[in-house]
């Protein structure tokens, strides 16, 4: 029996092997772009949202799509004022709890609050249009991000000054999250994502103190309803990823600032699925179709075959060319065999130099392309910064993962993450950009081992 896209996605969320990796393009305000409407018109109309979601699901051959990607829905329903724009989701511009409103005055939103009637109607219409074969993600604002919307940046200091008050606020935002998730499920969503980007700005200690309990309550509730819950974060949340996985989600989704290989390790340790992380700006917005195919391929290779879902780093920017997303879909559906990336079977043979006999130390930086991948760019910059002091005793190369030769070389050296630095054929730094001092010392060690200094 054929497996539907939705079944495929749910299998991956439950860490079961799948015939191919499922793909969830986060179409938010970009849905407006797809049907020729502004972000504001789009996010204020159930008909337009449903039409945008159905169009995206079909055109991008998605296994799942979010119905609305707008982290201001709950905030607006709770009294935050919004500033709207043509090509972005709205921004919160006032924080009721910083303006005299008391927490006790706030009530958990209902199906009638703010734009919730629009979102709920959009979910029902989208479900009718896409049928049961495609997953619909309901995105709720994570408890910490919602607390920040309600209180404003003062929350950061109050975490130190009045922790009990922040805990009470988090208890409330958790109740809001559960209530809104229940409404979205009832309307027809079969996956819920808790989107909490602001947690990337706090330490693991603060995460545990303020976020863990509310997030656990939300995910426990979802589990009871039999609906998979995902934890989305945007930003450099590296140190909190384990804490996120411990909150009991079915999957953790990250953006391009997180190394997918490292994320995969954490996911396996905690028995959760994971997803991500095609770069939004450099690749999806400004890159070519080939750039998008390559980035998708790289993510698929890094994510592995089990328990991984391909997705953009975060909400797809409004103006991303639809051809770029269609190009990613080709890779997902195995129609673009010309794309080269790690793991692809190529017949190219490479021979590594005999590093011991080289009259210099060879530094190789393996990148996707330093102009289009921020971590790659920093890694190249780090090398460029320290090398002049060694003059011709050190030679370096940026090896872009764009040709079969480079891929073969990467395999021969044993590089598993991009970007990486190999010194004289040995992987020295993998995915994390070394401090200059550490990098300098590593090069010096090699030089002195060869008696070049």
């Amino acid at each position, binding site marked *: 029996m054929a497996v539907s896209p939705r079944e495929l996605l749910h299998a991956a969320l439950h860490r079961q092997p799948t015939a191919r990796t499922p793909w969830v393009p986060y179409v938010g305000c970009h849905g407006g772009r797809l049907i020729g409407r502004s972000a504001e018109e789009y996010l204020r109309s159930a008909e337009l949202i449903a039409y945008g979601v159905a169009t995206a699901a079909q055109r991008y051959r998605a296994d799942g799509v979010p119905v609305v990607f707008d982290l201001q829905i709950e905030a607006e329903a709770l009294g935050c004022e919004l500033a709207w724009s043509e090509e972005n989701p709205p921004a919160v511009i006032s924080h009721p709890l910083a303006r005299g409103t008391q927490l006790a005055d706030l009530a958990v939103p209902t199906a009638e609050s703010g734009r919730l009637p629009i979102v709920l109607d959009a979910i029902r219409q989208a479900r009718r249009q896409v049928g049961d074969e495609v997953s619909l993600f309901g995105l709720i604002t994570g408890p910490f991000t919602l607390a920040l919307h309600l209180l404003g940046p003062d929350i950061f200091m109050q975490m130190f000054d009045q922790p009990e008050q922040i805990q009470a606020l988090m208890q409330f935002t958790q109740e809001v999250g559960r209530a809104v998730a229940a409404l979205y499920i009832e309307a027809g969503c079969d996956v819920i994502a808790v989107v909490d980007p602001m947690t990337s700005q706090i*330490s693991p200690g603060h995460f545990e103190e303020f976020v863990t309990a509310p997030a656990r309550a939300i995910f426990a509730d979802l589990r009871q309803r039999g609906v998979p819950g995902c934890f989305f974060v945007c930003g450099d949340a590296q140190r909190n990823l384990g804490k996120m996985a411990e909150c009991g989600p079915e999957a953790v989704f990250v953006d391009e600032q997180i190394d997918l290989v490292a994320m995969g390790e954490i996911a396996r340790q905690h028995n959760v699925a994971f997803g991500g992380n095609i770069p939004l700006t450099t690749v999806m917005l400004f890159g070519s179709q080939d750039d998008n195919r390559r980035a998708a391929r790289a993510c698929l290779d890094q994510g592995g075959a089990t328990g991984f879902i391909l997705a953009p780093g975060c909400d797809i920017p409004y103006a991303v060319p639809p051809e770029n997303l269609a190009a990613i879909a080709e890779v997902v559906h195995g129609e673009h065999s010309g794309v080269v990336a790690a793991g692809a079977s190529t017949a190219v043979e490479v021979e590594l130099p005999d590093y011991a006999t080289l009259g210099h130390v060879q530094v190789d930086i393996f990148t996707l392309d330093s102009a289009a991948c921020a971590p790659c760019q920093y890694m190249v910059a780090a090398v460029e910064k320290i090398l002049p002091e060694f003059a011709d005793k050190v030679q370096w190369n940026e090896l872009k993962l764009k040709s079969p030769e480079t891929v073969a070389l990467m395999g021969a050296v044993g590089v598993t993450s991009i970007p990486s630095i190999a010194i004289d054929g040995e992987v020295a730094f993998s995915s994390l950009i070394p401090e200059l001092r550490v990098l300098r010392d590593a090069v010096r060690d090699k030089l002195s081992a060869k008696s070049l200094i």
Partner: protein
Amino acid sequence: MADFAAMQEAVIKGNLGEATRLTQEALDGGTAPAAIVNEGLIPGMLVVGERFKNNEYYVPEVLIAARAMKGAMALVQPHLKEGDIEPLGTVAIGTVQGDLHDIGKNLVAMMLEGAGYKIVDLGVDVSPEKFIDAVQSQGVTVIALSALLTTTMPSIGKTIEALNAAGLREKVTVIIGGAPVTEAYRKEVGADAYAPDAGSAVEALKGLAA
């Protein structure tokens, strides 16, 4: 002799009460106001910047450290004489036209202030004309531009073009940052420095001055 190490520690830990108490004691004991700033408060804030850069500190830790620093500075300020503290420069900072996000911008302002820069905060949605006016009327030496959105990022380029057109570009250092901004974009628009986060903003400016 004032306890500079304890003063640094109070800033690093973001302990406002302790930072102001030690500062007041030092002032009462006759410690030179400039020494309090240069040997007690600023070195503490530099450690905070370093820790933020190394992911040991996060936004909340930086904010309470900056608050402790500010509280202590408010006590020292009236006692400082002209020339006591070498001004590093005056920074006009703002989120560019069309962009309403202020958290990142505020953080950079606090870090720069902690490192010893004078800050002129122009707020959010700042037009190129406002930046030009700040350069002309407030002795600004550095322009710091922030954009959170891919759609407002082009306002960075427009602001730099406006500085060029007004003949002011050579007079100021331009540093840029924000989620979508990259080193490649810095080159494209001709800014002097790009900082991926608030901690490196201080370092980037100092690097240019060196």
